[in-house]
């Protein structure tokens, strides 16, 4: 193995010389403890390396070993249910090895090497097979069937394939290549995290990702394969919203990346997910989730890598034809890691000290989401057999909640859904604290047909009507503030009351109530219809000379108030 020599150490940045032959973004092992690092700058034979572990105790003169390979993740059965750090080291195994604290220089396999998986072949001997085609299946967890695919770049004829119990390193098939060579296929493959996995083509998303959160699904929906961002000041509930989506979204696989956030929050996920039941499968949520935890006190450079690690794992399942949803909490911490490394490289800063390439990196990351036609010929009964999707929801934590922040702006340029969290709503304990006036979703058109055929012909009309009432409320409140509420007409006062009902009975959702915690689309539709119908009825009664107070005390209002605590059939 080739090696260089350290000439400078400054926090997570190490400079080494004698690095001829090193390539950009190659992984190197730094110093005597062989810390993991990545080359981020080359000048003649000097390489600047960002190190993914604490560099205390490393000094000039120590060796740097070249691996001649970019930062990769291991892909194969056993990912689901795992908790990894930013560079895919399993935290549970690390704890077994080194105790309660994270110690550096420890290596651990991302996938369990000893575990035997029951492999059922799908491809036949002598069958012609191409990249992304299915070789066989492994029941990874009780809800996830892991499809073992031929890795990208390989094409040929199946020469040998067998059923049985295999570990991930065992050869399950042999493929004769076009050029006459032979490739041994195992269930594990490596993929560089900074490179997106290939697909046949990207197509536009048309099915909503149902999150169970009314303000999202009804008012600002995201699609399967869509991208959304959720900026907000601290205490506005970003993490709670992401947790709720991770719990209740109707995706097949969830990848949750805790990037530079609180340790206890990851613990919360770890303790809660196995206990919670997926309403669709009845099985524990952990059976479909992968967690990546690089908390705020863990090394900064690994934080930078964690979002890429996460999205590569997500793409891998997308390629199997699954609907995958990735939550990144928070992309601001990722951007700050970029800034810190950039500062140590003494690069010329752009806005707020962030590197000039921030916008490009943000865009590259979000563009890896989407609905795709997968490479191979897949038989997935749950859709038309060829598509998979990857939805990305990113939290952004702007300083002081200021939306002019560079990371927020760079994100808004690429995402299609903007959920604007407001601390004022959070102070009133109105959760999810998503402001209904400033948020938007550009997917309403995409999912129009789906809503019409699957849920209700008039869903969108109801939604638009409700939106109009809420906007009207804002104007009316402004007037009331100036001239007093008595000066409003009786119809206007009705509008205010209906808007209040929309806010309190529909938009407000209690994440700690067992029933209210998630609403099916049908329930949302029914609830909305109830409120809007009440509005129309009341309006007619008013016109016929009814008294407002009488209308407002009608028993139907009580029903509205209680509807959130009822299941969809009871409404």
């Amino acid at each position, binding site marked *: 193995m080739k090696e260089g020599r350290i000439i400078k150490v400054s926090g997570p940045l190490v400079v080494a010389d004698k690095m001829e032959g090193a390539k950009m973004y190659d992984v190197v092992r730094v110093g005597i403890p062989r810390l993991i690092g990545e080359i981020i700058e080359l000048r003649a034979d000097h390489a600047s390396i960002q190190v993914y572990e604490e560099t205390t105790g490393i000094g000039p003169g120590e060796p740097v070993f070249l691996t001649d390979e970019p930062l990769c993740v291991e892909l194969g059965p056993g990912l689901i249910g795992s908790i990894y750090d930013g560079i895919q080291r399993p*935290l549970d195994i*690390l704890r077994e090895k080194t105790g*309660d604290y994270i110690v550096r220089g420890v290596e651990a396999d991302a996938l369990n090497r000893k575990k035997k998986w029951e492999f059922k072949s799908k491809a036949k001997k002598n069958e012609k097979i191409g990249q992304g085609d299915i070789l066989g299946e492994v029941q990874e967890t009780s809800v996830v069937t892991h499809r073992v695919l031929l890795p990208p770049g390989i094409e040929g004829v199946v020469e040998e394939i067998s059923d049985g119990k295999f570990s991930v390193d065992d050869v399950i098939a042999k493929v004769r290549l076009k050029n006459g060579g032979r490739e041994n296929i195992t269930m594990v493959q490596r993929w560089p995290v900074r490179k997106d996995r290939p697909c046949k083509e990207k197509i536009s998303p048309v099915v909503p990702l149902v999150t169970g959160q009314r303000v999202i699904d009804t008012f600002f929906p995201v699609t399967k394969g869509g991208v959304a961002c959720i900026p907000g*000041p*601290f205490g506005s509930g970003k993490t709670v919203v992401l947790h709720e989506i991770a719990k209740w979204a109707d995706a097949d696989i969830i990848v949750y990346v805790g990037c530079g956030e609180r340790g*206890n929050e990851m613990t919360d996920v770890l303790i809660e997910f196995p206990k919670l039941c997926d309403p669709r499968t009845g099985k524990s949520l952990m059976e479909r989730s992968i967690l990546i935890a690089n908390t705020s*006190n863990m090394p900064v450079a690994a934080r930078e890598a964690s979002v890429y690690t996460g999205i590569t794992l997500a793409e891998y399942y997308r390629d199997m034809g699954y609907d995958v949803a990735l939550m990144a909490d928070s992309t601001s911490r990722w951007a700050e890691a970029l800034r810190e490394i950039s*500062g140590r490289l003494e690069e010329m800063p752009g806005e707020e*000290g962030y590197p000039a390439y921030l916008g490009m990196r943000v865009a590259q990351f979000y563009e890896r989401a989407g609905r795709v036609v997968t490479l191979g010929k897949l038989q997935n009964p749950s859709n038309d057999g060829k598509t998979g999707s990857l939805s990305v929801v990113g939290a952004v934590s702007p300083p002081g909640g200021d939306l002019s922040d560079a990371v927020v702006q760079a994100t808004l340029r690429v995402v299609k859904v903007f959920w604007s969290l407001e601390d004022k709503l959070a*102070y009133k304990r109105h959760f999810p604290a998503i402001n209904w006036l400033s948020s938007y979703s550009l997917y309403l058109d995409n999912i129009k047909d789906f809503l019409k055929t699957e849920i209700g012909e008039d869903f969108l009309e109801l939604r638009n009507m409700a939106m109009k009432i809420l906007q009207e409320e804002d104007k009316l409140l402004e007037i009331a503030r100036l001239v007093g509420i008595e000066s409003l007409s009786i119809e206007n006062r009705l509008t205010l009351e209906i808007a209040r009902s929309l806010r309190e009975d529909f938009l407000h959702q209690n994440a700690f109530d067992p029933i209210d915690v998630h609403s099916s689309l049908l329930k949302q539709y029914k609830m909305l219809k109830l409120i809007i119908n009440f509005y129309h009825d009341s309006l007619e009664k008013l016109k016929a000379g009814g008294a407002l107070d009488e209308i407002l005390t009608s028993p139907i209002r009580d029903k509205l108030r209680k509807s959130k605590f009822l299941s969809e059939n009871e409404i």
Partner: protein
Amino acid sequence: MLKEYLTVSSIAGPLVLVKNIEEVKYGELAEIESITGEIRRGRVLEVSSDVALVQLFEESRGLDIFKSKVRFLGKGIELGVSPDMLGRIFDGLGKPIDASPRPISEKYIDVNGSPINPFARDYPDEFIQTGISAIDGMNPIVRGQKLPIFSGTGLPHNRLAAQIARQSRVLPGTTPKGGGVQEKFGVVFGAMGITFEEASFFISQFRETGAIERAVLFINLADDPAIERIATPRLALTTAEYFAFEKNMHILVILTDMTNYAEALREVSAARKEIPGRRGYPGYLYTDLATMYERAGRIKGKTGSITQIPVLTMPEDDKTHPIPDLTGYITEGQIILSRELQRRGIYPPIDVMPSLSRLKDKGIGPDKTREDHADLLNQLFACYARGREAKELAVILGEESLSEMDKVYLKFSDSFEEKFIQQAEFEKRDVLETLDLGWKLLSAFPASELSRVHEEYIQKYLKK
């Protein structure tokens, strides 16, 4: 024998540059001996082939370029810990200042600590009763939480912190995680740049209540070198970890004032001519603060815990200033003090609306406090928020123009502040007392207004 270097090439602020060095490691501890034989300590901040940049933890006054001797000690900064530290007072660098000899150390621990593996963490869910309604009722703390007090100059954050330290306990009748063994409590107090009077207030508080017997104090005063403050909170937390996870104690860490700490960090960053982030604070302030705040928590299989209450004064009461802002993004909520309540003579002047405890949900409810706690606090929040809105409206339009219901809300918000939030500095309110008080205040409303509470609790607790 350690090598001694006489090759200091520059001294600027807290930074010393040493040339012609060999075998120096990043993060290593360095000792610099002045001509008079005084020894200062520092840490290697950057090292290249033959130059090391050392950041002093003490003042550079009296150091010279030609005669100062530098030794690199081949280890990080360590703190000697022992059970005898309880009841003792140290300066910001860990030297005793209470006229007793230095305790004999049981072991030495690196003060920077290591990150706790998220997989090894245990979720904090044991309710701590502080006896303060604004906290217990509205923003309850649990063991292992980090909950800062955001204050401003001239607000009684020290009195509040002392009251919390004095009154905190776990509810009797609940089974603690340790299985009910004799629980041991302790307080570790880290003071950065506070005045002599503030420090003596805390010391006398601890002495009077006898709490000093189970407290360790690290005190860096306002006139001590600012640069020492970078080490002080780390010493405090290392001590806390030792007592919590090796001696199975429940440790409450109070760090005051984090603003002074961040300013010391800014000083070092400026001396290094680093590209500044917001308001001149270094871009890594978030990471740096996180390496301290994240040292709170619980570990699976260990009985002890570390609960952190950092105190910081917000410059100009501005919550969006980088120090409170970044702190709020790391900690599990915040308690914000309000100047307006303080002016109206309300103690503790806790502004409950923007205050938040993120971990409360698993710390309250049946078996912990009472079944109705979550609903009740949501309802109180909603009513108080509407009452405050009504109040603002009344200021513009006059109270007469409010609707009848808004007037009820307005009255509620006043009595909420005067009866619920306000209490005496030495008053210990039981949490059940706090909850009953909340229901009593809510009885001003018709039941139909209480939409955040489940029907059954209204039946059970709302008294007319």
